[in-house]
């Protein structure tokens, strides 16, 4: 006891000697939701400005860049959701795109001229997320008793089944042709459109900010700890009093919810939904983003997804366009887009060999080290404080 009290005093006397930057970090450490909002605001303003400068300005116009960022945002959402399932709870889900598809189709069917139903975008965000969550539970309930490889195989199957169902239910979903003319979001005085990607951009930034805040709070909650315990050792988690079935189900449901959100957004952005948007490559890409970013680390996964998407959909394409006219033997004849999965594979193998924890490994442990000392003694009610 005396030892611990001593530590607290140490850190308190240390606090008085902090510089202003340290104090800023200290403030953000305490009010993480504020920190996330500040960071997201900064990034959201900085990104469209950065792309005005070379070399980025050479790739695309600002409008196209912002549209690409919207696409990247979808994958960041997806990766964040999958990170809960794979990174936190340790459940390998190889068919995650299925929930993406369910979210997108929920919106596509209920907000297009296909059925003549036009539910507005904003409530549909929640509906789409909930429908995906329901499917998450429906898939999870019978299968989460399976372990490791078996669960991976079942989710792989589910990921294949869902697009096939959408393909073959011609009368209900227009089959392979998909649903076109999906409604864009609407707000009075604001036009969401292909030529005007900014409103989508703002929507995505707000969604990501909310999801990030919620995920961080979840990660440090009792539920978050239960997920990590299950990931580490399911039997020991049960022996510690964790209801493993419910806890795993919640991870699945939450991952699916995020994916559903992304689906609704994606459908309204492209004004089109079709089964081939949700194949295995999508599941695989999201998983690769999570692994490359650093499983279990929320920021790492977000940045990983963003970088992978931009490399995939902007850099590789532009690299090909850039190299072709230069007439360099061999290099100029490569269509880099064709090799994206080869490059993915190489990146993953290299990552597993050189840095298996991902590009941005969890800094959680360092923070835990920091808060562990004060956490248990000084502020037992910390989590009950309103942080927003």
């Amino acid at each position, binding site marked *: *006891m005396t*030892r*611990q009290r001593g530590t607290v005093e140490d850190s308190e006397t240390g606090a008085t000697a902090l510089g202003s930057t340290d104090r800023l970090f200290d403030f953000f450490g305490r009010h993480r939701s504020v920190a996330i909002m500040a960071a997201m605001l900064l990034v959201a303003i900085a990104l469209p400005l950065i792309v005005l400068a070379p070399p980025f300005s050479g790739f695309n116009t600002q409008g196209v860049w912002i549209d690409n960022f919207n696409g990247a945002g979808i994958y960041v959402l997806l990766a964040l959701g999958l990170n809960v399932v794979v990174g936190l709870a340790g459940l390998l889900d190889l068919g995650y795109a299925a929930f993406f598809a369910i979210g997108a189709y929920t919106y596509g069917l209920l907000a297009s001229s296909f059925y003549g139903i036009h539910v507005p975008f904003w409530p549909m965000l929640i509906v789409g997320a909930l429908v995906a969550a329901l499917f998450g539970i429906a898939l999870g309930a019978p299968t989460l008793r399976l372990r490791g490889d078996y669960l991976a195989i079942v989710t792989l199957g589910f990921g294949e089944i869902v697009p096939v169902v959408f393909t073959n239910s011609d009368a209900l979903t227009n089959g392979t042709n998909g649903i076109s003319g999906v409604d864009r979001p609407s707000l009075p005085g604001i036009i969401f459109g292909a030529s005007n990607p900014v409103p989508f951009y703002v929507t995505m930034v707000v969604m990501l900010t909310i999801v990030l805040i919620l995920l961080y709070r979840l990660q440090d909650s*009792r539920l978050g*700890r*239960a997920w*990590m*315990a299950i*990931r*580490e*050792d399911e*039997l*020991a*988690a*049960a*022996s*510690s*009093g*964790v*209801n*493993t079935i419910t806890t795993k189900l919640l991870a699945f449901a939450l991952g699916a919810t995020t994916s559903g959100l992304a689906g609704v957004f994606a459908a309204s952005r492209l004004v089109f939904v079709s089964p081939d948007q949700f194949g295995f490559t999508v599941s695989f890409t999201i998983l690769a983003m999570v692994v490359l970013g650093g499983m279990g680390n929320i920021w790492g996964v977000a940045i990983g997804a963003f970088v992978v998407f931009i490399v995939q959909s902007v850099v590789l394409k532009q690299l090909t366009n850039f190299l072709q006219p230069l007439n360099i033997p061999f290099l100029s004849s490569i269509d880099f887009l064709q090799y994206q999965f080869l490059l993915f594979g190489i990146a993953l193998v290299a990552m597993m060999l050189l840095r298996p924890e991902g590009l941005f490994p969890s800094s959680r*442990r360092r923070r*835990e*080290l920091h808060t*562990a000392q004060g956490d*248990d*003694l000084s502020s*037992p*009610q910390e989590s009950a404080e309103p942080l927003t």
Partner: protein
Amino acid sequence: MTAQPAATDDLLSMEAVDAFYGHIQALRSVTINVRRGEIVTLIGSNGAGKTTTLKTISGLVRARSGRVMFDGTDISRVDAYRLVPRGLGHAPEGRRIFSRLSVFENLQMGGFTRKRSEVNEDLARVFQLFPRLAERRAQRGGSLSGGEQQMLAIGRALMSRPKLLLLDEPSLGLSPILVQQIFSIIQEINRQGTTILLVEQNALQALNVAQRGYVLQTGRIILAESAADLAANPQVRQAYLGEI
């Protein structure tokens, strides 16, 4: 036996419990009891059913027939996670610590079912028993030495403040000095009021700290006596204490 009112003293009793892994019967009509405040040990060779007995008590394995009574209620059909808040702590075989979580987080998980304010108290108690863990609180569980991991496994189980602590082979793979240390800590935990059911291969040490013992052989209880009597039993000495 039946005439003794001491039966109400039982914190735990297993009555004619059969347990199976698939078609293989692991426990055959196992009947044991543990009274409040006791250290009881379960000894026997590999595959005798010691671990299965503990798992059946803590709900990780279901008894096919028979009854497990804990603290006055039948727990034979209760899920493992529900038994923790009722006062059943299990430090499972092979330690099974959360290797990528810190020592602190491991202990925090042990107190998963308790209130935050209580957790601090229990944490202080565990750190008092295992000062080593206090020193290493920020270290990853997986990076601890074998002895420290064992301490962490016991400490984690203690964090739920159990009435009955099930310890599965706490001395496994430890050096002789550490074995001594672990056993004296087990006695200390018992002195502080926790009843202990101890599974051990190290029969000599186990019988040394226990009041009573059971000998398991191929899923059956073959002997049930006081620890001193068991230690003196020629059959036991020959089979488990390494005497010829």
